C-alpha cells in the first residue's frame, strides 16, 4: 500500500542504488541474489526507523546522495559513517532522525568504509521484480542506478521506531577477511595458498557490486586447463589467468569458469563490502 508520498533524487552520488535483501532461490534460473552488499547495515537502518528488516532503502557508495522529501520522513543511516545534513542541520548515523516536509537530506563522503545505507520509515515502494526491489547491476533487474530527478515512492509505515540509538561498530584498524579453503584450492600450488594468507591485497578502483578486483602477488596454478562453468557464491575468491583474485560480491555471476581458491566466510561479507579502492585487505584462515 502506497501512501502517495515520494522522495526526489537531487544528486545521485556515485552509483547509488535501491536495495533490499535481494532475490534468494532463483540462481537455477540464472538470477543471483543481489540486494544490499552489506546486508547487516541495511537491516540495522531499517530497524532504527521501525521498518521490516527487508524494506528497500538506498545503498550509496561513497555517500554523495541528496534527496528531497515530499512529506516529513523518519530516516536512519548505517554502514560507512559519513557526515549528513537534514534541512541544513547535521544528523548522525545509527540513530533515527526526522527530515521536515520539503527539506533535503544530504550525505557527505565517508572518511572510511564505502557503502552508506539510508532507510526511510515506510521503505521505498518501487515496483518489485521477481519478489524484490533490489537493483541487480548485471541482471538488469530493479530500478537501476539513481539519477537526478528520479522520484521514488515511499511506502506506508508498518511500525514505530523503538530504539533511539544503535551502538556504532568500532572501526577496525585493518580489514581482515576469514576464508574457508576451496572448492578449487587443489587447482593452486601450496605456495599460492600461503601467499593468499600472508600477503596484503589492495582493492583496485575496478571494483563494484559484482566483485572487488584485488592487486597483490599473483596466485600460481598447480594445473592448467579450463574448468567447466560451475555455481558461484558471494565471497568467492575467483582467480582468472592473471593470478590476481576477484572477490565476488552480491551481484556476482551465478556461474563462472575460473577456479575459486577460497570463500570469505559469511559473517565477514559486510566487512568486505565496506573495503574501498585503495584499502588493504588481509586474508586469514577461518
Amino acid at each position, binding site marked *: 500500500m502506497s501512501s502517495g508520498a515520494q522522495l526526489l533524487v537531487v544528486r545521485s552520488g556515485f552509483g547509488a542504488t535501491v536495495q533490499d535483501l535481494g532475490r534468494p532461490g532463483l540462481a537455477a534460473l540464472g538470477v543471483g541474489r543481489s540486494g544490499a552488499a552489506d546486508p547487516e547495515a541495511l537491516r540495522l537502518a531499517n530497524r532504527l526507523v521501525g521498518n521490516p528488516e527487508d524494506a528497500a532503502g538506498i545503498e550509496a557508495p561513497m555517500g554523495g546522495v541528496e534527496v528531497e522529501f515530499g512529506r516529513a520522513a523518519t530516516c536512519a543511516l548505517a554502514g560507512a559513517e559519513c557526515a549528513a545534513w537534514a534541512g541544513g542541520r547535521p544528523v548522525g548515523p545509527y540513530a533515527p532522525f526526522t527530515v521536515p516536509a520539503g527539506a533535503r537530506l544530504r550525505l557527505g563522503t565517508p572518511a572510511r568504509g564505502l557503502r552508506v545505507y539510508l532507510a526511510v520509515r515506510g521503505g521505498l515502494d518501487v515496483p518489485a521484480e521477481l519478489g524484490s526491489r533490489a537493483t541487480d547491476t548485471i541482471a538488469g533487474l530493479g530500478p537501476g542506478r539513481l539519477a537526478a530527478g528520479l522520484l521514488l515512492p515511499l511506502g506506508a509505515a508498518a511500525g514505530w521506531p523503538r530504539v533511539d540509538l544503535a551502538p556504532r561498530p568500532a572501526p577496525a584498524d585493518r580489514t581482515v577477511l576469514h576464508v574457508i579453503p576451496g572448492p578449487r584450492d587443489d587447482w593452486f600450488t601450496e605456495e599460492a595458498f600461503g601467499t593468499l594468507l600472508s600477503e596484503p591485497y589492495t582493492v583496485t578502483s575496478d571494483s563494484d557490486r559484482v566483485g572487488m578486483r584485488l592487486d597483490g602477488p599473483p596466485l600460481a596454478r598447480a594445473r592448467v586447463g579450463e574448468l567447466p562453468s*560451475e555455481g558461484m557464491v558471494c565471497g568467492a575468491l575467483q582467480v582468472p589467468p592473471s593470478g590476481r583474485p576477484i572477490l565476488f560480491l552480491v551481484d556476482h555471476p551465478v*556461474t563462472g569458469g575460473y577456479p575459486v581458491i577460497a570463500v570469505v566466510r559469511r559473517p565477514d561479507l559486510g566487512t568486505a563490502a565496506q573495503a574501498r579502492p585503495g584499502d588493504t585487505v588481509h586474508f586469514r584462515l577461518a
Partner: protein
Amino acid sequence: MRVLRCGSDAVLIEVEDAEQVQQLHAALHAAPPTGVTELVPAARTVLVRYDPAVADWQRLRAAVTALTLAEAAVAAPAETVRIPVRYDGPDLAEVARATGLTPRQVVERHTAAHYRVAFCGFAPGFAYLTGLDPRLHVPRRAEPRTRVPAGAVAIADEYTGIYPRQSPGGWQLLGTTALTLWDPTADPPTRLRPGTAVRFVEDESEPDAEEGSRSA
C-alpha cells in the same frame, strides 16, 4: 562424486558428466537433505546452498554420498517447449564450413535433436541445452561479439542456447527466434528451467518488415 566445501553455507558436488548432473539434481530435488535451501546445477556440478543454522557441510557430505544416482530418478519432462527459429544467423555458413556439412544439413541436425535444459547462467534465463548433435560441437568464436541480439539461437561446444536479452556473447549464431523467453513480470519468468525439454522448429515464414512487431 566429490563433495567440495564452498564457503560458510554451500557445498559443490562434482560428478562425471551432464547426465549425472541431471540425475543428482533430480535426486536432491526429490528428497532434499535437511537444511538445503537451493540447488544450482551447472556443467559438471550441483551447488547446494544450505542454512548453516540447521545443517553443516560434513552431514551434507554424508547425506549426498549416500545418494544413488539412477536414470529412473529423472522425471520425464511435463512438456516440450517448441522454439520457432529462422535460421538466418551470421555464423551458419562458418559452422557449416567447420563441420563439413552444408548449411541445410546444419539446420536439419539442429532441428532433429531432442534437448534438455541442463542449467541456466551467464544471464537471467540463459539456458544451456544439452542434446546437441556431436557433429555440431564447435568452439565458441575467437572474438566474442559485443552485441548479440535478444532471441539469437546459438551453439558452442556441447551446448545450444538462446540469448534471452541483448548482451555480449561468443557463441556461434545459427538463427533467431521471435519467442519471448525471459519476462521478469511473469511467474515463472522463463519456461526454460533445468530439466525442461526443448525442440527447435524451423520458422519459414517471411520476416516482418517492421523489426519488433513480430508476434510469437
